């Protein structure tokens, strides 16, 4: 039962980036750099489909125990 934690790690990284970009959005908004705010917000939204993709790719990786397919 060899597990693949690649997906978990990748999704954790995505979530970390989410936190960072959300923080950036809020800060840049208060610094009144509105174009940069929108840029960061778009990146944050784009991270969601990426997370879904990683999930779909990784959900059946490893952890197979023979009878549960």
């Amino acid at each position, binding site marked *: 039962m060899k*597990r693949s*934690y690649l*997906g*978990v790690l990748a*999704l*954790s990284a*995505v*979530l970390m980036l*989410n*936190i960072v*970009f*959300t923080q950036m*959005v*809020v800060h840049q*908004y*208060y610094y*009144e750099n*509105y*174009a940069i*705010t*929108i840029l*960061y*917000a*778009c990146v*944050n*939204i784009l*991270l*969601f489909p*990426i*997370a*879904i993709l*990683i*999930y779909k790719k*990784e*959900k059946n990786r490893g*952890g197979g125990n*023979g*009878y549960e397919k």
Partner: protein
Amino acid sequence: MNDRNNKIPFDEDNYTHNINRNNERLLDRRGFMKTLAGAAGVFAVSTLPWGAVAAKELLGLGDKEYPHQKIADVKDIAVGDSVKFHFPSEHDSAILIRLSENKYVAYQNACTHLRCPVYWVKEEKEMICPCHHGKFDASTGVPTAGPPRRPLPGIEVKVEGGAIFAVRVKRYEA
């Protein structure tokens, strides 16, 4: 029996292996990844309003211009005097100060500490809040003493035809 055990995994022929207890694997790897992906979705949705307000600012909808309002005639205010008025609505009290011959400044005079009305003290050349003795610099609106930490919101004024008009409230600066 022997050849069956050599096949890995051998075909199960008992009927006990697939009995699952409730919530046996409440947070397995897959469930955890699902949670992470969902959290990414929550973050994506939560940044939407920030993007929306930023877009609104970029399109200039935030810089609202109110109808110009006459505050006073130039001849009625001596240098160093102040006039109270209301701008942009009748509930927003404001103050206009004539600092020099051609320099007028106006602020919304609700103190940024607890919104007491700030008034102009001609002798000390300062705006003072009576509640906690907060002081504001007249030429910039920046707090100089007392509890307030944020500047008073400035009002843009325009002199036209011997009268002073309030044009718009300046952007609040955090």
